[in-house]
């Protein structure tokens, strides 16, 4: 795991959350882990392939997820709150990964990202990649966001 992989995700997370929800994220913590196992109840997994490959796992609590969805589309939220909330956190994760991938790909390479998969619940069993992981956490007025970056070249 190269430490430089973290910077595009930090920049993208701050930028995307501010543009989409008007919320300012602040860096809370950075930890090294042996796998991208999330610690909060709602998680979004995105696969990355190409010259840089692996998984990025986003994780947040329900309040943070609901607040994101509400900020993204307040007028439509009551129709089907859970479906839209999971769609919103998927899309935010997709945007952060997509924006980070621009920096990771550079001028001449292409990095593909998979559609996001949402997992809900604290006791979910998922076979995560066993790849050294940088775990970033952010705080905001909406709550905590964690990004587990398990990428290698």
């Amino acid at each position, binding site marked *: 795991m190269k430490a430089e992989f973290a910077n595009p995700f930090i920049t993208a997370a701050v930028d995307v959350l501010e543009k*989409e929800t008007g919320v300012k994220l602040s860096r809370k913590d950075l930890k090294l882990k042996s796998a991208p196992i999330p610690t909060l109840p709602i998680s979004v997994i995105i696969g990355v392939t190409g010259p840089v490959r692996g998984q990025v796992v986003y994780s947040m609590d329900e309040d943070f997820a609901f607040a994101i969805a509400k900020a993204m589309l307040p007028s439509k939220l009551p129709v089907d709150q859970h479906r839209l909330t999971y769609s919103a956190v998927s*899309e935010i994760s*997709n*945007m952060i990964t997509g*924006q980070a991938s621009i920096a990771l790909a550079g001028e001449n390479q292409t990095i593909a990202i998979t559609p996001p998969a949402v997992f809900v619940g604290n006791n979910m069993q998922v076979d995560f990649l066993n790849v050294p992981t940088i775990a970033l956490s952010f705080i905001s007025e909406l709550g905590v966001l964690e990004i587990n970056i398990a990428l290698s070249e």
Partner: protein
Amino acid sequence: MSKMNMQRTGLIIDDATIMRLRLRDILEPYYKIVAEAENGDQALSLFKENKPDFLTLDITMPGVDGLEALQNILAADPHAKVVIVSAVGQKQIVFQALSKGAKDFIVKPFESERVRKSIDRLFD
């Protein structure tokens, strides 16, 4: 906005429900959104069925992705007006999409105005 644009029809293609709702919210005051698709396969059949005047097309989708869908749609109708709306704004991917025939490439997150103006320009 001219009355003529209100008669133009659009198809929104994105796997995320929230983005389809949002694009519909932005465009519906000015255009008639006739259908929504959540993957490339569905996009092609809804395109053939509805013959919309324009399409917004995401790239990262399950099954047939946006770049493949773009080729399929343009093979069905070389004059189709497709605007890509995607989070994956890597230079090589933008280049591929535009060289395959997309009219514009909007990178998410976007401003509502950027989307509306892009569609307006298709009919200038």
